[in-house]
């Protein structure tokens, strides 16, 4: 395949057209044969006043057109655009922004993930009526009105807000603009100018100017409806809308397993040149653009099952188009080529007409159904379609497969000035991607505000409804991939579709916590001996690929030392020489393996601890998790440690007592073979050593009313009975760790009862660890002083968290137990991830899923706020003064003007004056200016507004010298910082 014909995949689509609020509604409208034509809505212009059936000068011969229902709605907050700037922006730009965002999402990619990428933006448009309205209002011309206008800015703004670095350009070839943009974008990808492209077309009718033009040119249909290829065709009915598609190399899309709507196999663009008048179409040029496109695509006309024609419904235009099509398609072919035009449904959407036809054709190929073309029942006999090898698409039909199971269609779009485009499309290659069941997944939803979060949760709840459980992994993975990047977020561990849906619905009923936190600061607590049980971690191994993989790694590292698979013993309950997981020679490596695998799996998913703490034997996996020990070193040490202890004569006792270390000190001093093995809290210690001695102390304590509990142990760990094991352990001289490494996270040592640096954890430390008491309470207290936000127990059940709670050492941290004992299902691990994500941690989700689950599925597009309205049109303009109407609709029927919003009363102080300045520059209500709001990202303060801010600060703070902006910028990111800065400057001023 040469570069010239490299196949380009259409991977994402979003659109809004008259009568169709989104892609699915558009499809329904097409299949049902409905249209979006209505009377001119009052907010556009006075349809009656401009109407003249005779089409006199300055008049329109129709009161109808295809108008969008809410082109004034814009979620300015989402894009970090100030209301002032939003109000000064061409609504076409605003519509493009939202549609571009959703189209990228539809391609299975988070728009944020494209930041910095070589993604191109190609926007076709031919009307800038906003400019007409605003650019002659000289006194009202602001900086924002400048950047809010213009074709180039429409494209560039998408590049700016999504941070896309590929070519960004607007295309105006009149009615063919957006199909020409598609051609240019596909070529730019083939040429390597960009790796993917956002292609758009947009059109809005704000004034009757073009309607008057069409009327005067004799092209305007009196009923405002395009009747393509119909005997009743009597001209153009205008339409509007926005359509966006995302293009990529087919090979890239398939490699990424992206869903593909259709494939662009080839396209061509040409010009009529000197035809019978500049606006007259040319049959010969149309014929040659078709031929060129098929040649490039390497297909024969007979391979094309349908053509989405230009089909404006003008007598001459339809005749010439059909003749050109007939010249190419009229030859021998198995079935006539089906012909239709979306203009019958949504009118002639001008700059968006080409993309509307392209989207219709892509959806048709994706669904293998060609929708009917309206007015086909009055097909024009003069066109002699049958003789031309053509047939109008009457009623929806299932498209027959051609050779190799491929279905092909083509799209035409011809510009008023003679620029023609034709695009050849094929159905996507059939790739079956069977869903893989099992495992645990996390569904994520994110948005920019709490209210937005609710809207988007509702959309997701609807999307998961009725899906088979097999799909759950793919759905979870898709939400992680596409829907996890925004600030307000929720997540839930999903075990079945029904449960996930019910929990999503539950979230909508309950209040969703939306407090702003910083990034989570996580501490891992590694459990000690006694927590083990046969079967521990087995459910997680079955459910969680990274845990399974890391466990296998630990198993392999331990096997040379143990001679058996430790996971067979720990998770499957096998035995070695009659000994199971409760024999300390196996307990220690078993716990280590589970803890190593759990911490490593969490790290694989992006959870890295700020601090760790290990209770006794738990310190080995903790040392691995912080990079102090390698897996091989730790495996050798733990296996040796366990074996040496096992080799000691059995006997000894460990007794937990409800008493403080001070209280037992004297009693312990009297028993040379007994020591305090652990201090777990202010009134919780464990005695260990010679059984007789330990029981004597326990009896004495019991007598004084203390609760004592003898633990089931094989040996008295952390007691003088361990001295020989410690000596032998030292003799093994673990030379590999002669030079300990620095720790990547703070290591709270239970040997030292404080934080220990990585190089403290030398061989001598590990020898000392065998006999030294476990100073859990002190180590935990040190850890707590670091103020972790989350404590995660790394062990087979929750033990240390309980000790920490009883010792009052958890602070405000959330406590998470990813493996809560024998009842664990694996879902708790997912719930741990869900909590960390919801609280602000960004995770690397991919590895949570099996291969067959890492398949992006299309999810509903982001649901934007539609309560904020910004509008200007011929109806709102008086003379040369363009007045923008902005309003906030609370509900459909309850409209309150922006000025009526509650306003915080301001005092006279400098802080209030600064706040007022910010509000005024951005046209915000003062009440909306939260201290943590970022001026640039959240409030849309661009360089122009920052300059204004500098000027106003100088004024309101009554400074003699203007504040240099270069001094202001590095110090001030948020509103709060700005206020602090202002207070400081004003203090200095007073001095």
């Amino acid at each position, binding site marked *: 395949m040469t570069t010239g014909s490299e196949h380009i995949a259409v991977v994402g689509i979003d659109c809004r057209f008259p009568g169709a609020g989104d892609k699915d509604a558009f499809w329904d409208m097409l*299949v049902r044969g409905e249209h979006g034509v209505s009377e001119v809505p009052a907010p556009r212009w006075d349809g009656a006043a401009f109407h003249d059936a005779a089409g006199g000068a300055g008049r329109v011969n129709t009161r109808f057109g295809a108008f969008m229902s809410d082109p004034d709605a814009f979620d300015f907050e989402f894009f970090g655009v100030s209301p002032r700037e939003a109000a000064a922006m061409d609504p076409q730009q605003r519509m493009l922004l939202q549609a571009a965002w959703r189209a990228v999402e539809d391609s299975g990619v988070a728009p944020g993930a494209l930041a910095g990428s070589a993604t191109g933006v190609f926007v076709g448009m031919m009307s800038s009526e906003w400019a007409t309205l605003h650019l002659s209002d000289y006194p009202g011309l602001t900086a924002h009105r400048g950047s809010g206008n213009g074709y180039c800015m429409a494209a560039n703004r998408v590049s700016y807000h999504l941070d896309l670095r590929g070519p960004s350009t607007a295309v105006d070839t009149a009615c063919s603009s957006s199909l020409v943009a598609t051609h240019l974008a596909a070529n730019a990808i083939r040429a390597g100018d960009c790796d993917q492209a956002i292609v758009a077309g947009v059109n809005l009718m704000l004034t009757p100017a073009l309607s008057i033009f069409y009327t005067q040119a004799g092209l305007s249909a009196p009923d405002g409806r395009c009747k393509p290829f119909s005997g009743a065709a009597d001209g153009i009915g205008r339409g509007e809308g926005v359509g966006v598609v995302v293009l990529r190399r087919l090979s890239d899309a398939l490699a990424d397993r992206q869903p593909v709507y259709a494939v662009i196999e080839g396209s061509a663009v040409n010009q009529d040149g000197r035809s019978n008048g500049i606006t007259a179409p040319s049959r010969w040029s149309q014929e040659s653009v078709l031929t060129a496109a098929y040649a490039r695509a390497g297909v024969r006309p007979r391979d094309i099952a349908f053509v989405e024609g230009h089909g404006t419904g003008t007598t001459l235009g339809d005749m010439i188009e059909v003749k050109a099509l007939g010249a190419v398609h009229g030859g021998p072919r198995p079935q006539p080529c089906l012909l239709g035009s979306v203009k019958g449904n949504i009118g002639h959407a001008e700059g968006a007409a080409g993309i509307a036809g392209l989207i219709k054709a892509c959806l048709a190929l*994706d*669904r*293998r*159904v060609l929708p009917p073309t309206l007015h086909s029942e009055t097909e024009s006999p003069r066109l002699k379609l049958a003789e031309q090898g053509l047939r109008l698409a009457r009623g*929806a*039909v*299932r498209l*027959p*497969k051609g050779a190799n*199971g491929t279905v092909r269609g083509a799209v035409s779009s011809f510009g008023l000035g003679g620029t023609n485009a034709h695009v050849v499309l094929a159905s996507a290659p*059939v790739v*079956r*991607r*069977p*869903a893989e069941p099992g495992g645990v997944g996390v569904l994520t939803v994110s948005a920019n505000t709490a209210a937005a979060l609710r809207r988007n949760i509702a959309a997701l709840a609807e999307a998961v409804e*009725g*899906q*088979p*459980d*097999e*799909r759950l992994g793919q759905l979870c993975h898709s939400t992680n991939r596409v829907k996890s990047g925004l600030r307000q977020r929720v997540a839930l561990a999903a075990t079945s579709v029904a449960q996930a849906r019910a929990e999503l619905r539950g979230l909508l009923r309950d209040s969703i916590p939306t407090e702003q936190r910083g990034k989570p600061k996580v501490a891992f607590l590694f459990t000690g001996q006694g927590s083990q049980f046969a079967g521990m971690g087995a459910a997680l191994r079955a459910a969680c690929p990274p845990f399974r993989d890391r466990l296998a790694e630990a198993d392999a590292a331990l096997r040379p030392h143990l001679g058996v698979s430790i996971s067979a013993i720990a998770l499957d309950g096998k035995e070695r020489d009659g000994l199971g997981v409760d024999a300390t020679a196996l307990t220690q490596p078993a716990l280590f393996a589970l803890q190593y695998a759990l911490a490593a799996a969490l790290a694989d998913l992006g959870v890295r601890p700020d601090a760790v703490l290990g209770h006794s034997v738990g310190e080995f996996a903790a040392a691995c998790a912080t990079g102090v020990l390698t897996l091989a070193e730790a495996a050798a040490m733990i296996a040796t440690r366990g074996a040496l202890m096992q080799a000691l004569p059995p006997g000894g006792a460990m007794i937990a007592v409800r008493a403080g270390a001070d209280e037992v000190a004297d009693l312990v001093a009297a028993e040379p073979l007994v020591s305090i093995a652990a201090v777990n809290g202010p009134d919780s210690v464990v005695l260990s050593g010679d059984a007789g001695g330990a029981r004597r102390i326990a009896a004495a304590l019991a007598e004084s009313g203390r609760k004592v509990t003898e633990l089931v142990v094989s040996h008295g760990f952390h007691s003088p009975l361990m001295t020989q094991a410690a000596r032998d352990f030292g003799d093994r001289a673990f030379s590999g760790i002669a030079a300990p490494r620095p720790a990547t996270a703070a290591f709270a040592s239970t040997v030292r009862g404080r934080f220990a640096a990585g190089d403290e954890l030398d061989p001598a430390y590990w020898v000392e660890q065998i006999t030294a008491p476990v100073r859990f309470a002190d180590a935990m207290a040190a850890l707590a002083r670091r103020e972790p936000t989350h404590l995660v127990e790394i062990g087979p059940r929750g033990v240390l968290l309980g000790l920490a709670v009883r010792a009052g050492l958890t602070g405000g941290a959330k406590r998470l137990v990813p493996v809560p004992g024998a009842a664990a299902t694996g879902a708790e691990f997912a719930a741990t991830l869900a909590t960390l994500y919801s609280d602000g941690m960004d995770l690397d989700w991919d590895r949570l899923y099996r291969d067959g689950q890492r398949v992006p599925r299309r999810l509903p597009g982001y649901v934007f706020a539609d309560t904020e309205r910004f509008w200007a049109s011929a109806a709102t303009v008086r003379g040369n003064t363009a007045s923008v109407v902005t309003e906030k609709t609370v509900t459909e029927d309850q409209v309150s003007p922006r000025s009526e919003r509650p306003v915080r009363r301001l005092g006279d102080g400098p802080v209030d004056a600064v706040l007022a300045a910010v509000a005024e520059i951005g046209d915000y209500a003062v009440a909306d200016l939260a201290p943590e709001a970022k001026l640039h990202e959240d409030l849309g303060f661009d360089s122009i507004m920052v300059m204004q801010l500098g000027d106003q600060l100088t004024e309101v703070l009554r400074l003699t010298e203007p504040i240099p902006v270069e001094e202001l910028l590095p110090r001030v990111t948020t509103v709060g910082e700005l206020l602090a800065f202002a207070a400081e400057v004003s203090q200095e001023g007073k001095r």
Partner: protein
Amino acid sequence: MNTDTFILATGAALPGDPVDNDAMARRFGTNAQWVELFVGTRTRHFAVDLETGEQTHTLADLASAAAAQAMSRAGVEAADIDFLVLGTATPDMLMPATVNLVADRLGIDQVATYQLQSGCAGAVQALDIGARLLDEDRRTGLVIGGDVCAKHLVLDRDTSATPPGELINYVLFGDGAGAAVLSADDEGAPMRLTSVLNRFTGLGRDPAQVIHWWGETGQPEGARSVAEDYKAIEERVPGMAVEVLHELLDRAGWDSSSVSFLLPPQLSGRMTQRIVKELAVDGATEVSCVAETGNNGNALPFLQLDALAPRLGPGHRAVAVAIESSKWLKGGFTLEGR
């Protein structure tokens, strides 16, 4: 079959939790031990909440769920489906046919749909038609079978006086649906359908299973909506099953010793055991479900296929037999693992 037929995946849907014989005894006064011993069905699923009497699932619900599961396992999308065939004795309504509601649920449009009025041989009939529909243009199709006996479970009646002949239906039957995605393309397909036998053999014979339906005129005085001739069933079904088995084996040119799996008729746990004995395919592993699912008619062979799917390895051969005693239909098919 002119085009090779492959099964890409199967799906199953059973409503709610299994209802055991003790629960049936509590609800209907049936003798749990008797059911266990003479019917051999241990559990079944109902699309009705036995406590409240409310219908929890329609046939469209179950058929859509089974089909969606099969589609997701096959990795095919709604647009890939070229036709649907649904076999059922108990459509939710006579119109619209349930198959069309299922298509709607699944997002399938502009394709041929068929609904078969069928019983225990319905799944075989659906497979037969599905296999014949595959051609150059129709490469992928859905075949579904399911039944919901909600309309026949009378929950507000005192059953203590009901004759055992009527009560047996309560413990015998169950609800559910199963589905398979058929394809003319072999890529990644785990099974190949090598032959289907589907034949009416009831000329001049009285039906042994009758289910009536009534419209506005209502149920005639004293009429029973469901009636079975259990004697005829016991007498004739085993012999018919043996005939079907041998015809299938002969057609395939298979020796019975080369068969790895046997999917026998699923009348009841006990009857199935008897038939398996008479089929005498030694060495083949029996794949049955009726003891756990109850007799859910059109779903049964699909549920057996669903249970077979993970076990059928490359080169394995399987034979399925289904007999419908309503008007004496013979059914069966042979499969090869790939």
